[in-house]
């Protein structure tokens, strides 16, 4: 039963606004961080949230620079610890306001600095500011690839993947809270063009819908996905106008 999904919205309206409409920009994390000059708790919280989300690209970068897994974890923690302590971000404008570029520049700077580096390892030890989830599990895949990618490439790639993961996680949460996880899974398979994706007819029969309703539901699923994707990206840029550019950059990264 998918009551919400079966409700048909005029497609033109969706097409016009769903993902090109203004994203609620004032509340996005990175812009909050950037706007708050110093020590705003909201900015601090936003930055922490961003760090929690985007630790993997940093970790991947540090690893590729030759750090052992454990050291890389400590360095990553240490880096974020330092970043979060340093309450103002006046210098960010230089990087055209992208969180992605800012973190990459910062981590490079951080790693280049021998003594800060040692200090960070020390500080990072045992600290768990950022939960480095399932690091080991994914490690293998990352390392395998890493012999052919530079640290920057790994970072960028990881970043793009993290954005996508974030979006999918949010979609899943939304459908979960509406009690539609199973429906989400099927829609996701269709979106991803997975080999075992069900046909629209199969979905229709499973959820007791008309095929046309499935079609509409999938269309809205895609639209929602696009909206969330742009929203997620908006969290990492300073200006709404940057979303498109950032998206294109990420496309170029994964297509490389």
């Amino acid at each position, binding site marked *: 039963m998918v009551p919400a999904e079966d409700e048909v919205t005029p497609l033109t309206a969706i*097409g016009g606004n769903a993902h090109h409409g203004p994203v609620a920009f004032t509340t996005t994390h990175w812009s909050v961080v950037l706007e708050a000059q110093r020590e705003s708790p909201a900015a601090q919280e936003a930055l922490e949230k961003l760090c929690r989300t985007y630790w993997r690209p940093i970790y991947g970068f540090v690893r590729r620079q030759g750090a052992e897994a454990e050291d890389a974890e400590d360095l990553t923690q240490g880096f974020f610890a330092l970043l979060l302590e340093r309450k103002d971000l006046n210098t960010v404008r230089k990087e055209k306001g992208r969180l992605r570029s800012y973190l990459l520049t910062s981590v490079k700077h951080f790693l280049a600095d021998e003594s800060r580096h040692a200090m960070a390892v020390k500080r990072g030890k045992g600290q768990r500011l950022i939960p480095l989830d399932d690091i080991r599990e994914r490690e293998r895949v990352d390392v395998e690839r890493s012999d052919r990618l530079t640290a920057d490439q790994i970072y960028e790639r990881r970043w793009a*993947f993290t954005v996508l993961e974030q979006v999918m996680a949010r979609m899943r949460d939304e459908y979960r809270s509406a009690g539609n996880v199973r429906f989400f899974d099927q829609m996701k398979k269709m979106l991803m063009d997975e080999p075992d994706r069900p046909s629209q007819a199969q979905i229709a029969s499973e959820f007791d819908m008309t095929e046309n309703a499935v079609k509409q539901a999938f269309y809205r699923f895609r639209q929602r996905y696009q909206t969330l994707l742009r929203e997620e990206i908006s969290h990492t840029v300073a200006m709404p106008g940057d979303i498109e550019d950032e998206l294109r950059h990420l496309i*170029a990264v994964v297509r490389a």
Partner: protein
Amino acid sequence: MTSALRPCPKCGAAIPADAPEGGCPGCLLESGLGPRRDASVTICDLSAAATAWAKADDGGSAENVQANAAAAARLRKKPAHAAEMLGELGDYELLEEVGRGGQGVVYRARQESLNRTVALKVISLGQWASEAHLKRFRREAEAAASLDHPGIVPIYEVGKRDGSCYFSMRFVEGGQLDEVIKRSPISLRHAAQLIARLAHTVHYAHEHGILHRDIKPGNILLDGEGEALLTDFGLARLLETDSTMTRTMEIMGTPSYMAPEQAAGNNAAVSPATDVYGLGAVLYQLLTGHPPFAGGTTYETIKLVLDSKPRRPRLCNRKIDRDLSTICLKCLEKDSKRRYSSALALAQDLEHWLKHKPILARRTGIFTRACKWVRRNPTSALLVASLIALAAAMGWNVWKSELISRPAPKGIAVLPFENLSHDPDNAYFTEGMEEEILTRLASIANLKVISRSSTQQYQNKPRNLSQIAKQLGVANVLEGSVQKAANQVRVNVQLIDAQTNSHLWAESYDRKLTDIFAVQTQIAREVADALQVNLTTREKETLAVKPTNNLEAYDAYLRGLALEARFYSAYSADLVRKVTGFYERAVQLDPMFALAWARLSRADAVLYFNQSDDNPAVRRDAAKRALENAQKLEQDSPETLLALGYYQYWVLRDYPSAKTTFARVIKMLPSSSEVLHALARVTRREGRWDQSIVYSEQALALDPRNVELTTNAAWTRAMLRQFPAALGLCDRALDVKPYDPDVMALKARIYQAQGNLQEAASFLSEITELTPNDDTFVIKITQLRLERKYGEAIRLLQARLAQFHFPSQDDKGRDQATLTLMQRLADDMSGARVTAAHAHDTLVQLPNDAFIVVNLCQVYAAMGEKDAALTEAERAIMILPRAKDAVKGSSSEEILAFVQAMFGENRHAISTLTQLLQTPYSSWLYGPAPITPALLRLDPIWDPLRADPAFQKLCEEKQP
């Protein structure tokens, strides 16, 4: 590479194993772009370019546009109401997007006035649309529109609207040739008929002075009747045109079907025979089911196009008639003269075959094959050049503008070599090899060699060689990789003319470690050869030098070199100590290793100069001993002389002698920015400011991206109170190394001197108690003093003294002395007393150099001990008088003025300050810039003088 799970059904790209949720990341991200908001104007889409490049990388089409119609529509699964979102463009209602390519987007559209369906190609705008881009588009449209032939998709209208360019053409229902043959392969006969017809079409275009240049299955459409039409004159050019654009030439076709002359980027060689090749390549595809050349990547494909013979079609499919195979291979000859003389000749020969008549083409005999073999070998050089040309073409408009702008002067940059060893610990070896080759090249007088500190920034970055060459001001670039495993070394190098992207020389060396010097020598000589630089006998000897016979010693030496490179832009005593450790080991293993002795001496000298040791005499003696050993072994080598120069500069502070020595070295190493830099610093110490600036500028001209050099030049300007110039140099350094805290602090320092505290603060936000460079830290403290935020300054100083690991005691002593003064300013006398005692204990243990004495003086002054303070100030002036050291000498006078002011000797203080305001120097109190009226106005240490009208007058002076 990680095994891919599966290809993406949408775009065909392999989905990597680590892709989120197993979906195709590219497609998932692209879906965020969605349909255009307002197609009438904002058809700006970078993804077109991105997609096109991605496709090109797969050996596929870089420019599939119009023809994608049916297939694209099928694959895209467009939302049902897509048309409603697309909008309109003038007379055209956009119905759906049917294709994208490097230049534009193609829509199925309805032309309102004539009520017909057309294909509308609209050029992508946005940041990629340069004038050249638009020009190219218009030319394409004009060229195609002038053709009227049933085999060519007709162009209806060319237009421009709201900043977009577009043209409409016949909408061909059906599909691209490659789509169609995928569904149902065609017979040999049909293939021959089809190519014959296309050859007639192409001949018609040639007669009208137009080359297609991009014939491939994706540009051939089959209409409802199965007739072939040529479309997308995306690369077509009027034969007689020779604009700037065509001269610079982008090679942008699909490499699989591209003729060798195109792949090599040889624009002049592109001719009707190029299209004959394209037709042959399509024929090959029709006969065998695959293009003549298809590597896994663009790189590999081009390599094949240039280097390999196509497999004989009969080897792929025995059914292929021998004559047809011969016709096909004649089209694919590498030498365009050996192909059919025209498209018409090809058409006719195919028709002969179709009519079972003897064909004109002859199979290649043994002799020709041998010729081909000979011709194949020199192409590896060409190959790399063309790859670079191709890579550059992918970002064509940016690249082109740079290429045209100005020719770079002759010179060479050795870019960071890639470490291909499995063990990342071998990075030092790669870096060392790079440095050694660079050093050898630098010894050649007629060659300008960019220093490693300028090239280091290109490590691990995607490289745009022409851009790099432009940034560095050189014409040539040497790239390489090093792989070391046990006793075996593989070194690959390639020398590239970055301007033309032509490959001048490339070689691969597989050697035993013991032959490593020979390899270095050989590379340097080959490079000189390739650049047509004549070597003097002496230079030849220098190049052939074998610095040690002990490989272990050499290994330690290379480790030292690699580590040394890391303090190019930021001095770190700990790091330099490690460096000396490696050199010490090297000379221990081979006491005859002059080069290592020389390097050791320099490292010891710099530690002495920076007062990094608690017992500097030991360091001084070590520097001397190492120098003497180097001199015993190689008295007059440039390295030994450099060590001597630095010993005179850093240890003896005998600037005139150092200058003479460096002047000797510069004759031996005329393109060494390092020596010029040393000369700039030595002459600065002598107070020869103009000379110093000239040397700095010469060094920067040789080495434009060297942060250390740039920062040092900024210091000089700051000392001279030429603040705008100094700020400009800082920005230049920050361009290369963004967020460098030391450079940012220097900027802050300059803003302080100008009285702009707000701006200064913005560059100091990252300075914490743990900032490694104490000079940088002190600038932050000065800022707080100028802002009169004593509490904050005290907290920061206390935190540093508690937590920071001081690499040397004198920095600690300085911070303690600074804290004493700050507590005094904050009226915390009891705190000041405690700190003063600590500071005193620290400082009195250290040798009596000016730096220590000045700090002691500050402590006494803060504690109100007038006599002691005055004595120390005068002692500082005696130790380092202005006449002996123009950079630091005057700043002891500044301390004297401070003491005089503190104890009410206004007249003396003001007189000293008046003089200082006219003098260039670097200050103890304020970091690397002198006192200014603004600092007098702001700094609380001058408060005792405020009521004095003479002081007020000084503060009002107009200078910065």
